[in-house]
């Protein structure tokens, strides 16, 4: 038997003929829609897929996307980036975090800037890499600036568990883990207010983040179809997955259903990964409130270490040097409206001019998973073509 290759795992999900066929099917079925539908793809990974593969070009005008707040880097408020910066500038600290968190500018600069000013900042692929860094630097405090949604939370919990087992005591944690359903609910609240004030409706349905659901289960989205009448399809991240997810949503509208469905059946179950959920519960508890960049305070939308782990909680240990004053975005930046689905990146005055991936003003331009960065990188052609047609 031929050995399984990595490309076997994704090739079918990018198959041109399948994409064309799905496109035709959606066009045909969507012709029966009574009005256009606005689908919020909550996760930045989906935004990236939609833009990178040009999926909007394969869909009818009646299917519109609203790009949601599911980008862990984008929603991090500036004051917390300042925390990371302040920690990194401590002479005894090695600060480690994931991916493009190091590019996000806070009020004093980004972690990249801190590094160019002498701080020891590292990015890791897996939080478990921290074990090695902590062992190799016994005379330093190694701080893990933990970010991400339900997807990355269990990795932080596993790191804490392993470090404790191994007796590593120079590893501290600054926890910024956030959860998906709370901001989704808040956005629908926005919509209710908007309706009352006579604004036209925005979010009609959701494409649910699926890596989140691998851990937390699809069950976390149950209230949306049941209580709010908003269909949810939990979809995978390959272009065929997203197109199939859209088709499933279109069919719900045509058939007058409002249900929670799973397209990404190869990884997602209703219950999720129960042992990961137990591990998270062991170390973390809900914060009463967390300020999201662009969205403001959302109750119970983030996690922190439980009180009994105060001795490894960098937020408590370094409380004196960590500023808590909220810092707002640049006045011209409309990331908040974009994250709420009230505006598109192009509608921003500074998009692609003062605000670019190399010099981002707002959070959505910072991470490659942010809506503005995805539009900047992949979307301009479409925009120009539309403009010249108009």
């Amino acid at each position, binding site marked *: 038997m031929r050995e399984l290759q990595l490309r076997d795992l994704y090739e079918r999900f990018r198959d041109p003929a399948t994409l064309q066929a799905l496109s035709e099917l959606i066009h045909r079925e969507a012709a029966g829609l009574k009005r256009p539908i606005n689908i919020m793809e909550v996760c930045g990974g989906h935004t990236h897929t939609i833009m990178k*593969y040009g999926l909007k070009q394969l869909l009818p005008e009646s299917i519109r996307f609203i790009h949601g707040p599911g980008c862990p*880097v984008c929603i991090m408020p500036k004051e917390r980036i300042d925390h990371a910066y302040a920690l990194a500038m401590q002479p005894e600290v090695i600060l480690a975090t994931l*991916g*493009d968190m190091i590019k996000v500018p806070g009020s004093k600069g980004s972690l990249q*800037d801190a590094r160019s000013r002498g701080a020891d900042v590292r990015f890791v692929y897996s939080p478990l890499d921290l074990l090695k860094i902590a062992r190799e630097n016994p005379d330093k405090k190694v701080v893990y600036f933990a970010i991400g949604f339900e997807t990355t939370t269990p990795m932080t919990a596993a790191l804490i568990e392993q470090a404790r087992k191994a007796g590593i005591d120079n590893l501290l944690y600054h926890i910024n883990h956030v959860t998906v359903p709370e901001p989704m609910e808040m956005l629908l609240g926005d919509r209710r207010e908007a309706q009352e004030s006579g604004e036209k409706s925005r979010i009609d349905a959701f494409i649910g983040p699926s890596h989140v659901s691998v851990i937390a289960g699809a069950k976390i989205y149950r209230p949306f179809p049941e209580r709010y009448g908003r269909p949810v399809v939990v979809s995978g991240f390959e272009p065929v997955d997203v197109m199939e997810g859209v088709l499933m949503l279109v069919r719900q509208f045509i058939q007058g259903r409002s249900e929670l469905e799973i397209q990404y059946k190869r990884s997602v179950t209703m219950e999720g990964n129960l042992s990961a959920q137990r591990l998270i519960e062991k170390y973390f508890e809900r914060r009463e409130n967390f300020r999201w960049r662009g969205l403001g305070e959302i109750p119970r939308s983030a996690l922190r270490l439980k009180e009994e782990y105060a001795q490894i909680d960098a937020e408590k240990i370094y409380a004196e040097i960590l500023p808590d004053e909220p810092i707002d975005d640049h006045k011209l930046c409309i990331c908040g409206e974009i994250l709420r689905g009230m505006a598109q990146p192009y509608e921003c005055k500074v998009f692609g001019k003062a605000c670019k991936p190399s010099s981002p003003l707002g959070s959505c331009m910072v991470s*490659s998973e942010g809506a503005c960065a995805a539009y900047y990188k992949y979307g301009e052609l479409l925009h120009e073509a539309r403009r010249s047609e108009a």
Partner: protein
Amino acid sequence: MNESITLAQGNGGEENRDLISELFFKPLANEILERAEDAAVIEGGRLAFTTDSFTVSPLFFPGGDIGKLSVCGTCNDLAMMGARPKYLTLGVILEEGFEIEQLRRIVESLSRELARNGASVVAGDTKVVPKGSVDGIFLNTSGIGEILVPGISASNVRLGDAILVSRDIGRHGAAIFAGREGIELSSAVESDCASLWPMVEALLEAGITPHAMRDATRGGVAAALNEWAASSAVCPLIDEGALPVSDEVAGICEMLGFEATALANEGTFLLALPPQEAPRALEVLRRFEGNESAAVIGEVGDRYPGRVVLQSQWGTSRFLELPTGELLPRIC
């Protein structure tokens, strides 16, 4: 621009370009520099002249080492102007404590690569600095080559030209990234690090008349194509499905969220030439070991001058942008 230099400003992409144009091009402006070619064309078009510095980590990587790289880098820049590499200088900055044995291996490798180009090092300089001032060894080479075919230039890409790539893309960037970050893979990806002059010579001998050639180093194929688009005010149309990418490189990109078009190469080049010459050029390129995957990847259009358009196999298209920022893996 920032108050201090960031790593992103050395990435071969947008930040790098801004730094160079702001701090070097303006104060040092002259007619030759402003052409911004791979190598400067001097002495009435007879000679090509260029320089390159090398600070790679790790020093020895699958498929090459800093010695080989320092010859390939400079000789390839000359070759891309249709020039036969002739004379090189070598500058060496050594960190106190650097192992002599490693230095010996680097110089041996450098010497082997010179032979492949038929070039010689004719002058040099060595400095030793205190521990911590550099990371092991930094090299600089400058080179002079004799231009055999005049007019090959990034600003000479013409409407209707076929665009070819000499082999599968992204290997050097992927190999260095995997090596530096200790990513263990079942089959290690090897750098494409190689001298291009033998291939260029064979192409010229076969009567191929390239309008432009560009080795796709930092910033990868994306940066090279964008340079052509800007210098020649054309719109390269690239067929995404035709871009040759090895399974190993595709795998690294898949896992880390990179794009092969943004990864560096050190022995891979792009050609723009009259379309009728494409089959013959492919035949010549594929004769060279490692270049069996040479391919026509697109053509030169004029729909969006200055921009590169990438067309997918399912009928959608997007701009291929100049890569920005430091190469960082995505989060979830």
